[in-house]
């Protein structure tokens, strides 16, 4: 795991999962939803669980909320083991994927529910509801029935309801997936703003990599019940440690290369063409020899001089995207490679399919994957 994998050196994270395993069912049809997962989420952090369907994201949230209990391992909140506590005793609130607003209560009733259950005075509840309505900009809808709200409005009420009791941690399970694209973008910004204004730790679940990259302080990429990598968006994007992570996030090129013996720190890989480039290593131990590496399309360009060309291949296709252009290559060893270049005013489109061209790769753009 990258150095960022640990939230804070100084002990108490907002939430921490320690070697958590969750197995559903028994006998032949048992499902291992989480397999020895450990993660520390810091105070005030916007932390995202990202992964494909069925990888255990919801299960991890439900364990934190208390709707499920770990088969093995512990869940800590502010350093304290909360495993024995039922949901209604955990200072954690959830924004459910389908919102789960109470249909027999008004907007105000929904938002005030948590504080009411905490036995706050009527005055306190009313004030908090007013404040929350202002925060999500819905003051005028206080007495509406929740069935009379649009999707985006329901979303806001669900958020306000979960934020009103000022939880230590807010859990959000794909809260934006039911919204259309435009509303979704708006709510992404809204969520970031709310997190900044309230200073509450957000644990956010999504399977949308773009959403994860734009919103998160850190991301945990999950697959089949395990966390593959934890890091800042940039870190995960630029230095994926794993084939799955590299593939899941953004577009990328996979290449075979040879990892050379390390001489005083800097790792180097040698490509079949003979070119040698510096490379970043994953944080798993890796031995010299044949390795897989990735190079992001935008970290490469068509070589202008022979010396620059690390790879070479035949240009097969040119796809124009407005701001940039994608060049699809078939490398000499048969692999595919995509080069993405920004379109400048004077950049001529003097490359045509069929041409043999060299490809240059930026320094520091080569990332070695663990096996």
């Amino acid at each position: 795991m990258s150095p960022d994998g640990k939230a804070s050196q100084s002990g108490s994270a907002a939430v921490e999962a320690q070697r958590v395993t969750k197995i559903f069912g028994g006998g032949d049809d048992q499902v291992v939803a989480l397999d020895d997962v450990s993660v520390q989420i810091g105070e005030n952090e916007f932390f995202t669980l990202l992964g494909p369907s069925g990888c255990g994201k919801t299960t991890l949230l439900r364990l934190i909320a208390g709707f499920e209990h770990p088969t093995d391992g512990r869940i800590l909140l502010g350093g304290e083991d909360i495993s024995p506590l039922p949901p209604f005793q955990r200072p954690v609130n959830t924004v459910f994927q389908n919102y789960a607003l109470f249909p027999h209560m008004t907007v105000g009733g929904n938002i005030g529910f948590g504080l009411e259950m905490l036995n706050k005075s009527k005055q306190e509840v009313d004030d908090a509801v007013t404040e929350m309505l202002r925060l999500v900009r819905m003051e005028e809808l206080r007495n509406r029935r929740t069935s009379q709200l649009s999707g985006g409005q329901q979303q806001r009420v669900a958020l306000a309801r979960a934020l009103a009791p000022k939880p230590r941690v807010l859990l959000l399970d794909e809260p934006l997936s039911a919204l259309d694209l435009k509303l979704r973008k708006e709510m992404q910004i809204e969520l970031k703003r709310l997190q900044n204004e309230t200073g509450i730790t957000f644990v956010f679940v999504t399977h949308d990599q773009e959403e994860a990259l734009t919103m998160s302080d850190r991301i945990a990429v999950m697959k089949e019940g395990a966390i593959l990598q934890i890091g800042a968006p940039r870190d995960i994007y630029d230095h994926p440690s794993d084939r799955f992570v590299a593939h899941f996030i953004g577009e990328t090129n996979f290449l075979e290369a040879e990892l050379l013996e390390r001489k005083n720190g800097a790792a180097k890989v040698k490509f079949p063409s003979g070119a040698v480039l510096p490379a970043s290593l994953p944080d798993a131990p890796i031995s010299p020899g044949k390795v897989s590496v990735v190079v992001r399309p935008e970290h490469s360009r068509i070589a202008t001089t022979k010396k620059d060309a690390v790879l070479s291949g035949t240009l097969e296709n040119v796809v124009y995207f407005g701001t940039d252009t994608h060049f699809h290559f078939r490398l000499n060893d048969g692999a595919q490679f995509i080069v993405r270049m920004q379109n400048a005013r004077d950049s001529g489109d003097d490359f045509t399919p069929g041409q043999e061209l060299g490809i240059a790769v930026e320094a520091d753009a080569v990332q070695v994957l663990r096996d």
Partner: protein
Amino acid sequence: MADAVTQVDTPVRGASSPSPKGRGFDVKRLPGFATVAWMCLLVLYAPMLVLVLFSVNDNRSVTIWTKFSWRWYEEVINNEGIQHATVLSLKVAVVAMVVATAVATMAALATTRTRAYRGLPVVYGIINQPLMVPEIVTAVATLSFFALIKQATGVTGLGYLILAHTVFCIPFAYMPIRARLEDMDLTLEQASADLYATPWRTFRRVTFPLLLPGIFAGAMLAFVISLDDVVISLLVAGPGESTLPIYIIGQLRRGVTPEMNAVSTIFLAVSILLVTFFFVLARARK
């Protein structure tokens, strides 16, 4: 009842929507469909119309019309036998309804708000037993069982009839309540727990209010079923414990009188009113 209606309603609407202009198969276009439909309606409702009509007929015969009159209703109201039977029927039905609905609500919660376990289908079967066993069998069994208890304890009274009614009303109350619970989104209860509500408060503030239409429907079914029952009441009721249907049957043995028409009409009106009332109530809550 309202839930049962909606449930039947939905698939029909869904099925007809792919062929909005009557393309494809449509039962309504089969030859003779309209005739059969009208015949059914006629057989179903004509007797009731006749019943109602002759209840406001001045003549003592129930086949010869003379002129409009409320006299049979007056006689019904002043008939002590009918008064007694009505009060008894209501007493039994109200107690049976309240107890059966309470038991059915708990049974429904216990069978839907738990993790599925092995014996669950058996539990469903046991709860719904009165729906499957022929009523006469239940009646005979109850009769002899109660006779046994009466002999052993010497206790007699209306309690036996009420108990018998309560028991066979439970599955009728249970069905709509369970249907409602199964329709209800489980995450609502989780959201409530997530927002610091203890299980009891979750039940009071979330589950129960959302369940109310189902409970009303169940109570109404139980009430009507109890009012309506003949077979079990006939066998279990002790001397002087004739419920209204049993009293009517007893009177009819001596021939049909307009008085019986009047009682039946009142019975019908009350049933329709009840059903409408609960239906509207259930609608309004949605």
